[in-house]
């Protein structure tokens, strides 16, 4: 099943969209984690670019800086930073997502010395005091961007960016509904491929891309799945993994992934200034295991999604040495199994093609367990 035929898979880090933007004199800011509000970057007239590795299997330069006990996705991204692939970036925004990511950013900056390098410090829980701090952090980021790029973030430009991304989220929900149909019209790999592509776009262009894709899919025939799966885990942009799983007859009808549904989980903004609403919508909606005390919220969201999508089973997929997801997977497995949803936990290396055979065998066995074996 070629799942991404309509729009094509992203193949280049420095893609045509970004090249075009740069040709017009636009500036590009790299970020890596969903706790970075892209609205603010967009409101500053800059292009937010989510760091990705697009399946890059090479890490030899990164391995000189980080150890083999570090996440292979972060090493793959660092590799592309060090080998010059990411030299088109005009700056980086670091976030304290996890220890691996922090080390990746630090090594990157030690070597490349970006003139604009801003650390957005994000608290590990959502509370009135942590929210006030996070809002302050966004103000600091805003001022830093304004100063360095001689730009201005006005209430109006921020309102527009908030609106633009809210429309993207609404459109993503439409897309999710197409995935959750009895005979899904959109596969999991298509959804992830869309997010991989959209995560280096402005909201209006991403919205156009989603709208076009959805329109085409609405009239397309549905897929009769051998098994309806939900995928959970961290940041992975390896569309090939999803294709391999779906080529076995399953359809990934829902997910809780960073390059997937979690990127669109922000709660609708409440009252107050645009900056306050932005801060609240992000900090209150970080469904990541880095929010240590908030496991119950993550579990509830995963359960609700799995039930709504009528998933026959769930796969928790994470990269080796990711302690945050590795530990959460134990609780998720326990709680989903208790709720009658079988779970397969898979630990893998990023972009290790040699792992695919092993993983396929396990997925096949899992599908047999849940009654969807080919």
């Amino acid at each position, binding site marked *: 099943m070629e799942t991404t035929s309509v729009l094509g898979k992203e193949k280049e880090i420095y893609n045509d969209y970004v090249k075009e933007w740069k040709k017009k004199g636009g500036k590009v800011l790299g970020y890596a984690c969903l706790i970075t509000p892209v609205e603010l970057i967009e409101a500053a007239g800059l292009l937010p670019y989510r760091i990705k590795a697009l399946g890059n299997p090479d890490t030899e330069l990164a391995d000189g800086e980080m150890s083999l006990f570090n996440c292979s996705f972060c090493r793959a991204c660092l590799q592309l930073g060090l080998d010059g692939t990411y030299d088109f970036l005009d700056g980086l925004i670091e976030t304290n997502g996890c*220890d691996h990511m*922090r*080390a990746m950013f630090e090594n990157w900056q030690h070597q490349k010395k970006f003139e604009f390098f801003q650390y957005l410090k994000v608290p590990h829980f959502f509370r009135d005091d942590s929210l006030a701090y996070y809002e302050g952090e966004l103000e600091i980021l805003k001022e830093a961007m304004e100063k360095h790029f001689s730009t201005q973030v006005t209430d109006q430009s921020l309102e527009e960016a908030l609106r633009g991304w809210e429309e993207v989220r609404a459109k993503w929900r439409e897309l999710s509904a197409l995935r959750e149909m009895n005979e899904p019209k959109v596969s999991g790999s298509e959804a992830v491929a869309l997010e991989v592509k959209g995560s280096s776009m402005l909201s209006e262009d991403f919205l156009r891309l989603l709208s076009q894709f959805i329109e085409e899919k609405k009239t397309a025939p549905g897929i009769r799945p051998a098994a309806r799966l939900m995928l959970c885990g961290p940041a992975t942009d390896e569309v090939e993994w999803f294709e391999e799983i779906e080529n076995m007859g399953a359809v990934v009808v829902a997910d809780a992934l960073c390059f997937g549904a979690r990127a669109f989980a922000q709660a609708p903004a409440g009252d107050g200034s645009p900056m306050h609403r932005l801060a609240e919508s992000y900090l209150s909606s970080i469904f990541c295991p880095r929010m240590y005390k908030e496991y119950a919220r993550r579990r509830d969201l995963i359960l609700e999604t799995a039930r709504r999508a009528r998933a026959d089973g769930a796969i928790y997929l994470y990269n080796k040495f990711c302690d945050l997801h590795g530990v959460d997977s134990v609780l998720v497995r326990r709680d989903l199994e208790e709720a009658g949803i079988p779970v397969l936990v898979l630990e893998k290396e990023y972009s290790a093609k040699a792992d695919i055979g092993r993983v396929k065998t396990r997925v096949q066995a899992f599908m047999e367990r849940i009654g969807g074996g080919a």
Partner: protein
Amino acid sequence: MDKGFVMREGENGFERAIGILEMIYKLPDNLSEEDVEAAKNFVFPELQHTVIGLLDLPADRELELFFFRLLLGILKEAQRAQEEGKKLVFIPFTFPPEIFYAFDNIFPLCTEIVGGLITNICYGQGERFWDFAMGLGLPDSLCSANTIGTMPFFMGPGIKPDAIVYNSAGSCNPNAKIHAFASDYLGIPQFILEKPVDESARGRELHFQYLKRLIAELEEWSGEEMKEEKLREVMETSYRAVELYHEFWELKKAKPCPVPNIFSMTLLVLRSQMWGRDEAVKVMQKMVDMSKERLRKGEYTAPEELARVYITYIYWLFDFSGYFTWMEKEGITILGDILAIHYFPEMDFSSKESMLRGMADITFDYPMTRQMGGESISLRWLDDVACAAQDLGADACIFGGVHACKHTLGTSAFFRREMMKRLGLPTLMLTGDVFDKRHTPMEMFQEEVKTFVDQVVARKKAPRKRKKVQAAEDSA
């Protein structure tokens, strides 16, 4: 058969460990060589290194017997806490225990101290608890120190903590995650004191507000208000130990170093479990007095101090004799590790508010929290270790990388390069584990260290010696 570590009815691994440790009450104060030999033969072969590590060298023997008896008293208090109507809370080694000693109804138990006890006292060295964690599906890249420390309470029977309080969110993923997991899995409350990765005044102020909120939460949860007088009493006791800590630090500067290597481990345990109590003051005082006496007499275990090394992160703690005693006998002085670097602010004892502000500075700059939770892991870590290594006159550094510590492993290449650039200090890079000997056996560690000292440190020193000799010859 799992001989030698049979759980007793109704006890968990922690209780079993302190049950075994009780044998130290039966040892005479002035142990002879024969007594040590007998004690060594009394335990299982794989645990003999604990006995040798603590009792083989005369200075270690005197201090460690004294220290472990006092530690045992505190651990038994932890064991009895719930019977006496107190709440037992788990804390990581990054959390100053004195905060809890300021409550009458809350008693702290450091997770990693439990793990360390089991590893060094119980047959199997905690491997059964690690394996149990793996059986739950937890990843094998976690930290053995707190995983082994928490699992006995999962496996039950026996006492269980009433809550988990941790401050490692932001400075160490595996540490924070296993504590959060313990709370979720055991169904007990968790309290977080976050240290923002923000070293500005704004970050410090936020941390202070977080601390006050944590105290309020603990007060509500325990039904007891933290009283100013009790806090003052604890903080004054704590600061008596702080003065001795500074004196202890100064003593380490002497060449050869009069402070025995094993005292570094003792300091770590004191700070993690006993600080704020009289017992910590007594042990610190004894360590200072003994080191002073050794300095006065010019005592040093080996014929020559070949190398003064700074351990850039943390010690390996599954084989005291293979690590501390072996290095001491080889003439390799351990000056400290990252957990030995404390920044104690000037304390204002005038009010509860002022003491809590001082306490917030202590927690903000607590070892590991300060460096790995710093604005830059690599730079803060490098600055602090470089400063300590230079101050204490180190010749070299050893990075005993622990596979769980993704923050240091992710930045250690930069650290090693910069340490050489800044101070000309070579760093030996190793990977292994704190409590699990299966990663890198102690023999391998010793071989690497010996080669490093012989080939790198000694050579580095040799030209200076030759120059001195040459100068002396020239002037003659």
